[in-house]
């Protein structure tokens, strides 16, 4: 019995029972298609989150004051004043793995211009901040070192703020707005960045020299945050180590004492967020995998029915010279044909529906070749695995009984 003959027989058997063959195949088709679609959706969200994070600045490192114990009471990190301007200045000079660094102080309040007002946040920063957070000046210019030294009352505004305050299309450049009664002159407008993955409007802000915010708004001398960027994403860990060592020296923390600051890199955030989507992907794929398994059981069921139904045919084939292995090969081949054909259709359908999800629901998708190859391989193995027992049963029939089976 040659391979081509085996395929002819299997094809003919399926052709004789088109509807049944199709329904059996449908289990595999749905299984494979859902595995591919689910993986495409899962991988798609992962990719889009990774992309957003890298747009936020994937090599970003944030230093916050850490919580501390005072007399057995754990204090809120926000109340701590452990980050100082000296820390910022020492980072500029001493950290080799840090390319940009900016202090960050912010205050929330009401912005007023003429008859319009809007709540927003003012960020007091150094010009490096623009590089770290990937903000760009669309119109006007950035404030200068001189403005920082003099704590000048100048600011740059985000698009959302512009829309709220200058609703009649007035040019905001040069206008004076009030933040908590303090007048600021607008010297620039920021390019729009839209919402980030956590739903925060990245254009709803104004930025001003950190000295201005420190002295004129908050009246503090410490820093709420220092934000830096590593020279590249791959050196993030080294940069974090370096910063930790530096700050511990600055703050005179020795031995096993707890840090009074908290350093977080975007890499951690990235791995945290992608681990969530990885989990989702695994869950989706598991559900889809179960449907593939159910499809396989469908094959097994139909093959058993087929073997019983064709007992006489098996008996005949054996009595005219088919060996057990010939019968085994015949039925195994039939189940493989069902699963492989179903798998092929499933791959097409899965890729197709992933594209539909992308085009109609505008959901990000990413089809990885391994997911296609894997699900196809799995369904072939399913065909062999679930076809094996019925085929084995067929091959072990006694020709004497099989030929007289009614």
């Amino acid at each position, binding site marked *: 019995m040659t391979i081509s003959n085996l395929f002819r027989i299997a094809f003919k058997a399926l052709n004789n029972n088109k509807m049944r063959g199709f329904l059996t195949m449908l289990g595999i088709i749905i299984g494979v298609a859902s595995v591919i679609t689910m993986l495409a959706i899962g991988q798609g969200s992962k990719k889009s989150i990774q992309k957003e994070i890298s747009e936020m600045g994937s090599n970003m490192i944030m230093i916050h004051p850490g919580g501390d114990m005072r007399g057995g009471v754990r204090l809120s990190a926000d109340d701590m004043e452990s980050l100082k301007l000296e820390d910022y200045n020492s980072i500029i000079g001493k950290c080799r793995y840090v390319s940009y660094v900016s202090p960050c102080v912010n205050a929330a309040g009401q912005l007023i211009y003429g008859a319009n007002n809007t709540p927003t946040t003012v960020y007091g920063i150094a010009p490096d901040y623009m590089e770290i957070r990937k903000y760009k000046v669309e119109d006007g210019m950035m404030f200068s070192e001189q403005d920082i030294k003099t704590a000048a009352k100048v600011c740059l505004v985000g698009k959302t703020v512009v829309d709220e305050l200058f609703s009649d299309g007035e040019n905001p450049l040069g206008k004076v707005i009030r933040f908590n009664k303090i007048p600021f002159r607008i010297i620039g407008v920021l390019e729009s960045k839209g919402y980030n993955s956590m739903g925060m409007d990245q254009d709803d802000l104004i930025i001003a020299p950190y000295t201005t915010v420190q002295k004129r708004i908050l009246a503090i001398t410490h820093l709420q945050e220092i934000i830096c960027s590593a020279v590249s994403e791959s050196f993030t860990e080294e940069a974090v180590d370096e910063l930790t060592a530096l700050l511990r020296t600055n703050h005179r923390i020795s031995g096993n004492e707890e840090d009074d600051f908290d350093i977080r890199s975007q890499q951690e955030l990235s791995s945290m967020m992608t681990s969530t989507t990885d989990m989702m992907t695994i869950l989706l794929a598991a559900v889809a995998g179960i449907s593939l398994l159910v499809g396989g059981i469908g094959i097994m069921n139909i093959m058993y029915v087929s073997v019983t139904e064709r007992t006489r045919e098996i008996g005949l084939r054996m009595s005219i010279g088919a060996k057990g292995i010939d019968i085994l090969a015949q039925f195994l081949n039939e189940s493989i044909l069902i699963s492989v054909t179903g798998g092929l259709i499933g791959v097409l359908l899965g890729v197709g529906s992933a594209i539909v999800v992308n085009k109609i629901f505008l959901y990000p998708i990413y089809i990885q070749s391994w997911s296609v190859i894997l699900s196809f391989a799995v369904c072939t193995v399913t065909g062999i695995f679930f076809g094996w027992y019925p085929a084995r049963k067929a091959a072990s029939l006694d020709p*004497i009984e099989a030929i007289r089976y009614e």
Partner: protein
Amino acid sequence: MKDIIRLEKICRDFYVGGETVHALRDVSFTIREGEFVTIMGTSGSGKSTLLNTLGCLDTPTSGEYYLDGTAVRNMGKNERAVLRNRKIGFVFQNYNLLPKTTAVENVELPLLYNKKYNAAERRELAVKALVAVGLGDRLDHKSNQMSGGQMQRVAIARALVNEPAVILADEATGNLDTRTSYEILVLFQKLFREGRTIIFVTHNPDISKYSSRTIRLSDGRVVSDVENNRICNAADDLAALPVNND
């Protein structure tokens, strides 16, 4: 004439519910090339067991069976499958054609299990066998589009296609009406005259007069084994049948 089949003290015991049933007891006979033998017996006489043994589907408990010079008793399952494929042509009572399959494809079936033949040779031999049984004009008819007699002819063609040493017919006329039965017998007699060895197992005593020899079984033993010197011509009897017999 050489011996095609030689049975030497064949016994076949079955163990059913702790009891031993002796289906065949010391059966010995020899069938030479070109004989047309009817094996007769009532239900339970052991003729089915004998047929299974002759057809290499079953192996005897004791005794020796030589098919065309080959000892069968100690052969494995696969060896017997090959032996059946090369040496035996089966014709069954209920035809056992593959459903929804053309006559040619049905007849080709035994050759599919013999790597010696390619597709073209298979078809050529199948067509030749179908022409020999008088179905040259129905090559591509499907099995479900044929009458009982035609289906049995296809089955006979299938039994002929591998040029077997012996054709084993199991109640080959059992499902057919009288006229069609005679037509099939005419065909068997034609094959007999061409020199083929035929064993026809039946419980119908009428058939024995068209064969060259009759072996009677009863209770697992051969009770008579007679040559038939006056073989009736089935074609004459067919012609003598009333036209509206069925």
